């Protein structure tokens, strides 16, 4: 996996360097440690337009899409991430620039009503072709992670890109649900989907593709296929795919993964580095006693079966303790970090100041990846040969998070790419985002 990633990264290293330089400048200006928040649009009134656009895949291919656009902007995949508060009365106005009726259905929202519909589809009230409009209203009754997608000509329109994420926040900040067992430090969205580009080509040519013959060739997180998932949000050369998927955290922090099956197929989403614990599915906590016990019925796993239509919340955390050597490269007299257990001789995590059992080979025996900092220790850097590495400015650990269906790590049959991104564990004190 590492070699594959390295290969992918070589293609983007120059851009990434530029990006990181800009980022670094940002940190210097802003300073301090902030929380990673999901990029989206907040409020209670949203104006979306179903329209055409062109998405760029990780191999450079261009795919014709239908997407939801925010406030008349560019069509985007996934659609704008709508972030609302529990109890809000939410109004979504859908304008339809497409050549056929379109709509939105909100699975998990219980009281969706509509006004001004041009027609009634089987799953949702519709905005008519070429300028129609419909307004949906619902109460965001329960906190959680949800999705929305087209309810018209569903087989084709969801494939074309008409789907997006809906996040309902509870009253308590820093929690996913109304229970402290769902508290988190960092949160990230992983909206998984896939395209069969031949269907998109056929639709662009005005044909009716046979959806039953569909076979996906591009696999995406947040609308981007690898390695574009590594880029920041809102980069100018991906105007229809504004959301990146690179995740970062510090040792010991709780990372909330909001995972959505946004496409048509199932994806086994694998987190390297540590197990996650599923705390909710379909916007409902996994509880032993409903309404009381909190998310105590979830399971720990390292591969999440992400099925289309469903949503999952999971908590992932990485501590890097108990491996027998001090990954922070402390000297014995250094202060304990990140937690005291590493200094407690009775603890299985006692490794403060213990050196790595591996002697680093000479540089000429190493193959360098872009993410190698030159040091095995978290937060530290070492000498690198000219032209090697350089993508890991803070000495973090990079874990690939990806589909465990290896076919899905391709962009149109070419490895690597597809449904993959990175989780970076940064040393304590490194600012995020």
């Amino acid at each position, binding site marked *: 996996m590492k070699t594959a990633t390295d290969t992918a990264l070589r293609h983007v290293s120059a851009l990434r360097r530029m990006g990181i330089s800009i980022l670094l400048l940002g940190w210097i200006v802003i300073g301090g440690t902030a929380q990673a928040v999901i990029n989206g649009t907040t409020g209670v009134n949203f104006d979306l337009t179903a329209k055409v656009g062109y998405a760029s895949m990780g191999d450079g291919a261009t795919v014709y899409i239908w997407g939801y656009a925010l406030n008349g902007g560019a069509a985007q995949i996934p659609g704008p991430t709508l972030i609302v508060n529990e109890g809000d009365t939410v109004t979504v106005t859908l304008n339809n620039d497409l050549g056929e009726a379109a709509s939105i*259905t909100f*699975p*998990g*929202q*219980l*009281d*969706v*009503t*509509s006004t001004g519909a041009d027609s009634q589809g*089987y*799953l949702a009230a519709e905005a008519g072709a070429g300028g129609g409009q419909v307004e949906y209203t619902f109460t965001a009754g329960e906190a959680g992670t949800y999705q929305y997608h087209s309810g018209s*000509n*569903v*087989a084709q329109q*969801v*494939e074309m890109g008409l789907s997006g994420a809906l996040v309902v926040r509870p009253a308590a900040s820093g929690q996913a649900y109304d229970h402290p067992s769902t508290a988190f430090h960092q949160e990230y969205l992983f909206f998984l989907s896939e395209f069969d580009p031949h269907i998109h080509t056929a639709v662009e040519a005005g044909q*009716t*593709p*046979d*959806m*039953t*013959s*569909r076979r996906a060739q591009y696999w995406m997180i947040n609308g981007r296929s690898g390695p574009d998932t590594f880029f920041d949000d809102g980069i100018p050369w991906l105007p229809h795919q504004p959301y990146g998927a690179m995740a970062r955290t510090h040792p010991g922090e709780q990372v909330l993964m909001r995972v959505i099956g946004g496409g*048509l*197929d*199932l994806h086994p989403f694998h987190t390297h580095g540590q197990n996650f614990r599923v705390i909710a*599915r*379909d916007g*409902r906590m*996994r*509880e*032993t006693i*409903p*309404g009381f016990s909190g998310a105590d*019925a979830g399971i720990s796993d390292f591969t999440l*079966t992400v*099925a*289309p*239509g*469903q949503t999952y919340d999971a908590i992932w955390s990485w501590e890097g303790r108990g491996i027998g050597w001090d990954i922070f490269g402390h000297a014995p007299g250094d202060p304990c970090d990140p937690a005291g257990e590493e200094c407690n001789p009775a603890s299985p995590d006692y490794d403060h100041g213990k050196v790595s059992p591996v002697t680093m080979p000479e540089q000429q025996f190493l193959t360098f990846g872009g993410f190698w900092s030159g040091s095995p220790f978290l937060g530290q850097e070492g000498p690198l040969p000219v032209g090697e590495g350089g993508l890991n400015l803070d000495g973090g650990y990079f874990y690939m998070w990806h589909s465990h269906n290896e076919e899905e790590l391709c962009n149109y049959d070419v490895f690597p790419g597809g449904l993959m991104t990175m989780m970076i564990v940064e040393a304590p004190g490194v600012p995020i985002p």
Partner: protein
Amino acid sequence: MIIRATEVETVSNKIRKFVGLAVAGVLTLSFLGLEANAAEYFLRADTTTVTMPDGEVIHMWGYAEDADGDLSTEDGVVTVPGPELRVPTGDSTLIVHLKNNLPVPSSLMVLGQTSDGSTPTFDGGRVLSLTDEAASGGGTVTYTWTDIRPGTFLYASGTNPAVQVQMGLYGALAADMEDGPLCAPAPGGGTCYPGIVYDEDLILLFSEIDPALHAAVEADDYGPGKTMTSTIGYAPKYFLINGVAKTAGSAPIEIGTGGDRLLIRFLNAGLQTHMPVIQGFYMNIVADDGFPVPYPPEQYSIMLTAGKTHDAIFQLACSDLPEPIKSTGTFALYDRRVQNLSNAGAAGDGGMMTAFTLMDADGENIADICDNCLGVPNAAQVDTDGDLYGNVCDADLNNDHYVNFADVPVMVRAFIWQDLDGDLNEDNSVNFGDIARFLELYNDSPGPSGLHSQQ
């Protein structure tokens, strides 16, 4: 719509259970010599055709239930899926007599249940069938399961399943708990899992058709040395719920008022994963492959992989229904793997898509669960005293829950002073029409009201 699905095991419950079992034991002893009841079915495996929404006629294999229990006279109709097999509360034995009219040997197995003494058929070292076979062209075999586990199960051909199951040899088995005292069956319903009582149940069986295989089998063109040599290129084109692919105007599934505890039994006889979603509502998933789920999750979707069964409890209150559904009473159920919402690739809705419809017996376009007067079309739903009994049903003017002589002076006052509590026919005045209605409602309880029953 949170449903407490698991019964809390209290001491008093345990005592009750013990007493119940003791009573059951005594009853059994008193009927000494009487064997336990058995659910017995006579099935015929045979060919049939089904017509898809686009007019395509598909050659299928299916099971027919023989009506008179005599397989020598073939009086049942072949269906796909096959007939629902049920082992009711109190039974633990299932007997199936199978006659095979197909051109190849065939058999029947229940996934998740072990039949008595059946053996796989081998040809040398190669398994041909997972259970006893009935010979082609009219052979018979009898299967017995003496220890049926309660729950929801698929039954299907155990012979060359790659071909025979696809061809249509599948169906649903629903078995209830045999030890009723454990769970106190609800009136008219049953108990499928410990503590999971239900009023009614609904089988939703998902399956697929790849027409290429069916054409090859019909033309005797499937097998070694023939045009189609395997099912490796499986490419289904039709997607069915209970044997039906959606088409314009296909009838919704009636699920009663929605207020009862509906046990939905989801089964997947197909080869692909399906993701049933109930549009706009949640359900509690209570079982997985016929095993109870420890902490039933509340979800709007179910991951239904190939060969899988799941059971969910679905129950609505009027307050769960948004405005359009209160009047239409209809909402969709569909496969969120939306590529399957198509009939052989044709444009428009198709495939694994259906709708549930709630009862509206009096036809005033208000679902009975939200109707404050059942049996009388009262579209205005007038309820001036706000007691959830619509005026048309509510001559109980003193609100003592019975219409009797004590209500007469109140009605007379309402008549004189035009108190609209006495407007029993929704014409916005109290007149002789209301007096007549009052007499119709006299000497009875107010109602019935779908709303009041939820209080």
